[in-house]
């Protein structure tokens, strides 16, 4: 790791420690307490944190570095999922070939789409990627039904060929595994009132997340990354200096497509099914939102954004009217009903409304996302402290 600086190494270690200790950190409330619904330390959600983290890191390599806003990244995610499920159907339930194929297929697919879309820049590019994503959705949803199983979604069945798998005698659907370690295996540690769950699938995702994060640090700090930043700053000037920017942007596009493919492959590895709705443009919008929310062009931001959104999606969707009434039961009835009625819009099924409003607020007031917010708070704190020192100095100087 000689070419990454100490600060970056520290960030990487920070992410690694968080990822390893996630089952503890995300489970701060005892299992039986009323606050247990705010826990996030169960396998399914932790896997999603890691997978969407990878997705957002990949998207950030394109959008954060080059400034090309792609509205079609969900297509690569979907392609990755479909190819992984096909591997499970054809070869075996081992996740390694599935993930390799999903990365390769997503890479090829993004090469094709990038080659066409990157002929234009700016708004044109966004619209083109959006159109391609919708086209992929239509392809998966109806046109290519033999390959994708249409609106039902692609699933594994008992009579798939699976040429490398041992004979299935149990009569149950096989589960995804890594050389015998089943993805769904969870070891629960009971400590007093707390249950901490350690899931193999999650740790596999976390390893991939760390690799993805390390690679993105390397890309950010490489000459290639500098070139991409130059594209973002002023592409015209680069062109005038005689540099063809297309290979660089295309490479960035393909890399981020492969990240999305990896995420899709992992998603299918954790739960071997793939559906067309994974490719819909609202899904692409969500990826954009994660990156923006965390902080575009920062290393840590996208991962934070992904975790933030997935966590609140989970929490908000759980809060239904009964829970709300439970919370505000101490209020007078009329007031309680009014408050529950207002909050009802935003919670439960109204989560998307909260998401949309959050999205707008972030874009309007905090274009740098959470990372900018944190650094602003940090600066304000420093200035306040520094300000105090200055005033004391100011007092002391006249005396001299």
């Amino acid at each position, binding site marked *: 790791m000689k070419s990454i600086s100490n600060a970056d190494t520290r960030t990487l270690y920070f992410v690694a420690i968080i990822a390893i200790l996630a089952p503890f950190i995300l489970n701060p409330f005892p299992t039986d307490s009323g606050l247990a619904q705010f826990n996030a330390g169960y396998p399914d959600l932790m896997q999603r944190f890691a997978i969407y983290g990878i997705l957002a890191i990949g998207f950030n390599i394109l*959008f954060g570095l080059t*400034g090309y*806003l792609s*509205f079609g990244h969900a297509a690569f995610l979907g392609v990755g999922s479909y190819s992984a499920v096909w591997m499970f159907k054809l070869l075996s339930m081992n996740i390694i070939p599935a993930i390799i194929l999903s990365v390769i297929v997503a890479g090829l697919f993004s090469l094709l789409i990038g080659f*066409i879309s990157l*002929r*234009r*820049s*700016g*708004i*044109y590019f*966004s*619209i*083109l990627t*959006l*159109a*391609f994503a*919708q*086209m992929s959705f*239509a*392809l998966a*949803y*109806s*046109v*290519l*039904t*033999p390959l994708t199983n249409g609106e039902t979604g692609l699933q594994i069945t008992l009579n798939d060929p699976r040429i490398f798998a041992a004979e299935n005698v149990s009569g149950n659907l096989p589960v995804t595994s890594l050389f015998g370690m089943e993805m769904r295996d969870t070891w629960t540690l009971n400590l007093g009132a707390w249950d901490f769950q350690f899931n193999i699938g999650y740790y596999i995702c976390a390893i991939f997340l760390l690799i993805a994060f390390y690679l993105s640090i390397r890309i950010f700090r490489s000459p290639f990354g500098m070139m991409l930043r130059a594209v973002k700053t002023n*592409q*015209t000037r680069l062109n005038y200096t005689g540099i063809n920017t297309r290979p660089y942007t295309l490479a960035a596009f393909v890399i981020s497509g492969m990240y999305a493919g990896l995420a899709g492959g992992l998603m299918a590895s954790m739960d071997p099914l793939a559906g067309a709705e994974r490719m819909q*443009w*609202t899904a692409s*919008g969500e990826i*954009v939102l994660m990156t*923006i929310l965390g902080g575009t062009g920062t290393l840590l931001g996208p991962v934070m954004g992904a975790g933030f959104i997935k966590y609140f999606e989970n929490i908000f969707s759980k809060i239904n009217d009964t829970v709300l009434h439970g919370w505000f039961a101490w209020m007078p009835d009329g007031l309680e009903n009014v408050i529950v009625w207002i909050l009802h*819009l935003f919670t439960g099924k*109204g989560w*998307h*409304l909260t*998401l*949309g*409003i959050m*999205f*707008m607020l972030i*874009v*309007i007031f905090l*274009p740098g996302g959470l990372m900018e917010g944190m650094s602003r708070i940090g600066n304000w704190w420093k200035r306040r402290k520094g300000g105090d020192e200055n005033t004391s100095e100011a007092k002391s100087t006249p005396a001299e």
Partner: protein
Amino acid sequence: MDAILLQILNGLDKGSAYALIALGLTLIFGTLGVVNFAHGALFMLGAFCAVSLQKLMSVSKITIDPSQLDFLGNPLKVKTPYIVEWFGPNVGNVIIDWNVPLSIIVAIPVMLSIGYIMERGLIKHFYKRPHADQILVTFGLAIVIQELVKANYGANPIPTPAPDQFVGSFNVGALIGLDASYPYWRLIYFAFSAVIISAVFAFLRFTTFGMVVRAGMADRETVGLLGINIDRRFTIMFGIAAAVAGLAGVMYTPINSPNYHMGMDFLVLSFVVVVVGGMGSLPGAVLAGFLLGILESFASMNEVKGFFEMLYLPSIDQIIIYLVAIIVLLTRPRGLMGKAGVMEE
């Protein structure tokens, strides 16, 4: 021949919707330089103007009629819409029946003011920000509008029928010696959109206001230097674009029952239409809208599907628009009628 005529007609009504939305998008883009991802939401809001009016009209007064009994033996509650009570049964029922055309009158001021508020309240602050921010904020707005409508009206499509006189179909083919009957309302939709499109073009072409706006589209700064408040006019153009989208939505309700995501479905295709037509070109948007609409309906013809099946290919009616867009962009990167220097970067 009959089938071909029918497919052309079929394409016209979808094409009209594409053309109207794409026209509004291009107006906004040409004047303010903003790509409005919330334009589909405006289309949907227009459709929900009709739904709201329908709901409003069916607000009923409940009277208890002791002479009639319901199946439980209680006096029957009779619901009479207030409209019927005020105007009498003849006029009242006609008014309720003509809900969709009447919604136009409601939708115009509503959509104009929504457009005005949107521009002044939000988009105004984004002119100096990067294009990506403009896309993102309008995208967020689209989600918010969509979810609010969903929270208010539910997720299911709400049927809003056309007036009784326009139910049924008309044999258009008979006029030119062919046989192709076609629903009245779709013909009306096409005629309506033709009127709207011509009105917009005439407005830009033959009025002083339109002339100033066209000058502003060509060179905003110079027009500003001449002492004309161009921002104000552009704001009004935004309102007009919103109204065009809204009217397209109002009139579309009898064809497809409106639901909260109809706007998004149309928006993506309208973007493709704009790109194919050439960014910033109003005639291009209209032309491409109709072309792609007709093309789409041709691709869904059984004969075409059969042809593809013969070649062991899947039918492409779902993706034909995108395929055409790719081909157009690869051969004519500026679109069919795009002008040099618009969004070239």
